[in-house]
């Protein structure tokens, strides 16, 4: 027993070192599956508050660009309204707003998809890590919940992974953990992912070679995933042919500029629970 205590006293520093390192490894391993990072995320109150204070200062420097982007978005929305008043696109419209006959629905209007858009301000943002997180100033009190899609005025942003009462963390598309279901102009579907290096480049792998893709083509989200369909993911910047299997590899420039995100929309799909229930009942994978 005495020897044992002597041993501990002699190697106390080494033992402490190892214990601390093991704690860290456990923390890393535990949060890599995105579960239970309640304390250690920028959504916790203290950190969120200090980021908010910092953002209050930095906010003013970006006002000019933000005005520009808001103006652009307004212009786009106006164009859309004008378009819809003139030509009524039945197929496109039915996807979102088609009402079933009233006898089916107990006097209620039922829709295939029912999206609620909530605006939120970005209070912290990063583009340099391998998995980038964004903190916004809306939390569970505002109705933001896990797995909701987040988009900006110009493209997809990410997915809500953790909420506190007033803040929420978003795993952005710039993450090696997250793929986005995507489709090209002609309907070819695939996945868009991030290589983990540069915030201005997303890649879409395994596009069949007979598909005609040109530089500047847009890539949109599909309705397969939690994102609302037809949101811009990015524009093709470069098309490469992989020699091994002669499939195409597309480099995309993301639609949203992740470096100066200021406002985002959190999209809640009210039909998601029902859809998941149906999909689970045939043992399909969750989106």
């Amino acid at each position: 027993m005495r020897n044992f205590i002597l041993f501990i006293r002699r190697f106390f520093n080494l033992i402490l070192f190892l214990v601390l390192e093991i704690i860290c490894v456990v923390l890393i391993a535990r949060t890599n599956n995105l579960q239970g990072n309640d304390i250690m995320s920028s959504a916790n109150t203290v950190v969120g508050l200090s980021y908010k204070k910092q953002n209050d200062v930095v906010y003013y420097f970006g006002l000019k660009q933000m005005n520009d982007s808001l103006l652009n978005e307004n212009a786009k929305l106006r164009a859309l309204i004008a378009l819809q008043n003139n030509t009524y696109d039945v197929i496109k419209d039915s996807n979102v707003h088609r009402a079933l006959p009233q006898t089916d629905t107990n006097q209620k209007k039922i829709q295939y998809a029912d999206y609620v858009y909530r605006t939120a301000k970005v209070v912290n943002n990063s583009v340099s890590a391998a998995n980038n997180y964004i903190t916004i100033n809306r939390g569970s009190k505002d109705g933001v919940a896990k797995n909701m899609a987040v988009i900006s005025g110009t493209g997809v942003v990410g997915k809500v992974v953790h909420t506190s009462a007033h803040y929420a963390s978003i795993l952005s598309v710039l993450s090696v953990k997250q793929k986005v279901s995507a489709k090209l102009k002609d309907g070819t579907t695939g996945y868009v992912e991030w290589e983990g290096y540069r915030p201005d480049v997303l890649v879409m792998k395994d596009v069949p070679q007979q598909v005609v893709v040109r530089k500047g083509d847009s890539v949109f989200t599909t309705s397969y995933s939690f994102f609302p369909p037809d949101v811009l993911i990015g524009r093709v910047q470069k098309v490469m042919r992989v020699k091994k299997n002669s499939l195409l590899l597309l480099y995309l420039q993301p639609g949203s500029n992740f470096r100066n995100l200021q406002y985002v929309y959190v999209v809640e799909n009210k039909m998601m629970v029902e859809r998941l229930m149906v999909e689970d009942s045939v043992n399909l994978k969750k989106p």
Partner: protein
Amino acid sequence: MSIYVRNILRFCLIMALQVLILNKITLRWWSQPQGFPVFIPYVYPLFLLLLPFETPVWLLLMLGFVTGITMDSFANTAGIHAFVCVLIAYLRTNVLNALLPKNLSEYTNQSPNVKNMGWMPFLVYSSFLILIHHSVYFSIELWSFANIGYLLLKILASSATSILFVLAYLLLFTRQVNARG
């Protein structure tokens, strides 16, 4: 100023500098595919490097852990910063022993700085530990050696920037006693 107050102030200052300014730096010359990697300077290990000589090792380790956890909660990287900080806090004593002529216990009430170590040993000391910090951190963060050139470039660029920032810190906060004489 008491040595505790000074170190607590330094902790707050360096953390604020790191979290509020340096973490937000995004330099804009990698926008092409196959471009230069994104890099980010981490100067907050400087707090651990500047703790007094006679700090016991267990206290160093605990402080390293606390520093790392603080940084982790700001950067959403649960545990990686803490891991690296504990590592360099452990290595610090050995590096100092190797670089200094006298035993560490003879430097009472002093912190490692340019005056009592000399420019060259201090730079070697800080750059070595910062290089280790960055290498381990980025390796864990990226978690693959598939693109080793990219990883090395990122480590080197980040370490070089961090060391520049450390130099700037030293030039700002070293009192020039014999500047005129």
